[in-house]
């Protein structure tokens, strides 16, 4: 598996550390309901098909949002996490 680091280019997956779903990017407000926090922390889809998850490129410290297909293993997009939120 190869992931394109927005900073360093195409790299083998051994250079990356997996975190989890990109749900982690959508952090609820501090005073959000318990259910929102529960969903954020624990409840995950397990799609057969397109999924978006977060990988850390250890050598350069860049977090990458990877859009990929769990069935075909195709990687559709690798975007920097930093560009997205604000």
């Amino acid at each position, binding site marked *: *598996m190869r992931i394109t680091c927005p900073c360093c280019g195409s790299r083998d997956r051994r250079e990356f550390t997996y975190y989890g779903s990109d749900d982690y990017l959508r952090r609820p407000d501090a005073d959000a309901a318990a259910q929102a926090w529960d969903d954020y922390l624990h409840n995950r889809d397990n799609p057969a098909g397109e999924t978006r998850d977060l990988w850390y490129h250890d050598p350069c410290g860049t977090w990458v949002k990877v859009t990929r297909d769990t069935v075909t*293993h195709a990687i559709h997009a690798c975007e920097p996490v930093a560009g997205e939120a604000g």
Partner: protein
Amino acid sequence: MTQSHRIPGKGRIDRARPVRFTFDGRDYDGYHGDTLASALLANGVRLMGRSFKYHRPRGVMTAGSEEPNALVEVLEDGQHTPNVRATMQELFPGLHARSQNRWPSLSFDALAVNDRLSAFLSAGFYYKTFMWPPAWWEKIYEPLIRRAAGLGSLSGRHDEGRYEKAWAHCDLLVIGSGPAGLMAALTAARAGADVILAEEDREMGGRLLSDAPEIDGRKGDAWALAIVAELASMPNVRLMPRTTVTGAYDDGTYGALERVGLHVPTLADLPRECFWRIVAKRAILAAGALERPIAHPDNDRPGVMMASALRSYVRRWGVDPGRVVIFGNNDSALDAARTLTAEGVRILAYIDPRPVPPVEEFRVYQGDVVGTTGHLGLQTVRFRHRGGVSEIAAETLALAGGWNPTLHLACHMNTRPDWDEGIAAFVPRPDMVPGLAVAGAAANRFSTAACLADGAGAAAAALADLGLKAPDLPVPKAEDGVYAIAPLWSVEAPGRAWLDFANDVTTKDVELAAREGFASVEHMKRYTTQGMAPDQGKSSNVTALAVLAETTGQGIPTTGTTTFRPPFVPISIAALGAGGRGHGFAPERRTTSELASRRMGAPMIEAGLWFRPSYFPREGEATWRDSCDREVTMVRQAVGVCDVSTLGKIDVQGADAERFLDLVYSNTMSTLKPGRVRYGLMLREDGHVMDDGTCARLSERHFLITTTTAAAGPVMRHLDFVQQAFCGDWDVRLISVTEQWAQFALAGPRARDLLNTLLRDPVNAQGFPFMACSETRILGVLGRLFRISFSGELGYEVAVPARYGAALFDRLVAEAENLGGGAYGMEALNVLRIEKGFITHAEIHGRVTAFDIGMERMVAAGKDCIGKAASQRPGMIGPEREQLVGLMPLEGHASLTAGAHLYEEKAPATAANGQGYVTSVGYSPTLNSWLGLGFLKNGRARHGETVRLEDGLRKRKVQARVCDPVFFDRDGGRMRG
């Protein structure tokens, strides 16, 4: 011994370079260019092994990596490598090989009695025969069966051989160097693409070396040599002979095993093998096809081999096969008979179930082979034909049951091939592996002309994908014959007919599996072990499932194939794990004080990837405890020095740095004044404690935070995530500076005296109070000074750029010794912090909350932080939780053990009665008692109670009193003083 079966003048061997080798202790001669198999055949040795289950005598079947029979052990320096395919082992002077799975000798094997008992040893016999009594399976039956059935043995010693792994990158990877592969490589290379051409054999050329069809008016092998020479001269081409591509993985990554040093005597400067990971933008699989045998009775005797292998042994290695019978069902069999005749081989009979018109060169029979004789080697072949049944004496029977395209790699991503009725074989579908095209015989092109054109075409398509222009390269002229076949899987005749030679699976086993309900191909495989030997059924799987399909009447496309999985050939674990043994297992991180510590006799222990001194033994100290007790007392009474460089250090800068730190720490950092340090607690987003450390504000916009040694990496990753995901537009930047600074703790009542021997500007208690920090000159070097304490004593930490670390440590230890102190190690550090109730990752192990460790007030009320919401949820706070407590044994010198569980005094030790557990223990010379830290249900309300510590592993029970986790100097007067 003379090479009695070598044809004079023939073969691609170097007769000027004779090679002496041994097989089963006997000397033989061969030539440079031989394989072990070809050299043995040239010496008239047909018997090379014993079969897996029945111990039947076996000879070589093939001339390639798919060999099921001729597996041998190669011996060197007390080591032996088992299951080496004699067809792949190149001959070199001093090669020692021996046969395997036989006793006492290859020609007389006591366990050949299994062959007579075959009626009792059919598929699944061990599931049926050895059922009772159940206890016997593990102790008696299984060891017996394992000894009787098997392959080679291991030496039992470590493999000290050198192995390597490597990466390669290219535009186009071409797998296989037959006509299709060479044309593909040449086309792409002339277009300027970066090309890797991988070939399993020692020589490039594939079947052109064995069959030598005419190409552009030249013999095929001569044409191949010319192309290879051109490729070798091009800087954009890497030729990789002796390299088997073993697996196709995601995103154009291919695994490949190169036999680097297995064809020469053991040499210091060559690794045995190299495991490659090749990343290719495009790849072409031109691996050709594998010929399959026909299942007829007694088709497994030494002397029975594939017709294609026979062509290779005659043409490449000049082996004289003696009198030959060919049994085939397709045009390539007939072509083999003609070519071999032209090479001077005596073909006594060509047998084919199809009506074949008579030819001049040899006798043609329409019929099939129904049996053979010859105990240790083929003597006669019995066959049915229109005139009846005949038996002729022959040394070699060549089988030609048709060709299976070598499409394994195309199936490695779990796509299934199509069944092609025309060639009675599985063929690849397009785009089975993204970026991989299949060409040549692997893609059902069976004439030389079609292979050449297909290779060129596949390369042109790849070049178009790569944005390169295909060169103007005419496809050479070559034979364009038709390959027609009448499928024949097994001959209807009495006797056992082998399918999987390597695992001793016969047609009867497959039929039995179907009868007993194991009719799906995956079940049949597991019941019979068909295809589960080292050759993975390369030459037998298709025939076996065809026999299964005939038995069930379901047809082959419905029956389907089993799954093709990497690796294509066996890979030694040593190659896969190259570099990973001993010091290569994990990176080793070393502090600047390590050399000095070792010089002082300190044993080093691992802390994560770091090595830290355990204790510093002095004369007269018999055990580590003696040293540890002395070092603790030394710190409490004088001064100690400890290297704390391994703690993670992260530099945080920017206008929004304080805002960022407020978000990642549970407590508030924005109120910290420059020149001050604050203890900080970090939570995970799920509300549990992640790490603790200190946060120093060096200036308004510049912070330096520390992490624990073990969590430095994960904390950095976490901070990067928070910053990039939630603070993208904040003015804050982070970088790890752990290795840039050497840092030492000075602890003890005389720490200030020690410190002031180093400083240009001495400090006093008021001017540099507890939790102060500043830049300062340390022995003339600009460094940093922190007044923090992990021992509970007056403490400082001094940091200098790492290059000054070793010198500073030496100086510190010398000055400390003048003051009645010295260096202390991890053991003392641990006791000191337990006495003070300071936590480490033994306590914050991932399942505890700030509440559990008595720090719930450190989750600041007025701001959000990572983990705050979850830390307040029901269940995360409350009397039902296990809380940090101190534990002191009732009887002064009773020792405590970490990992012991806590129970009420009289309660039985059951899970339901569990009240908590012990996390850290140590003997305190200060308090003259063992001390423990642990977690106890509602523990803070239970100080003064007695609990029982029960350690089931070490069989220990101790009564202990629950107390505050701070055992010593509870008001902190010593470290603040």
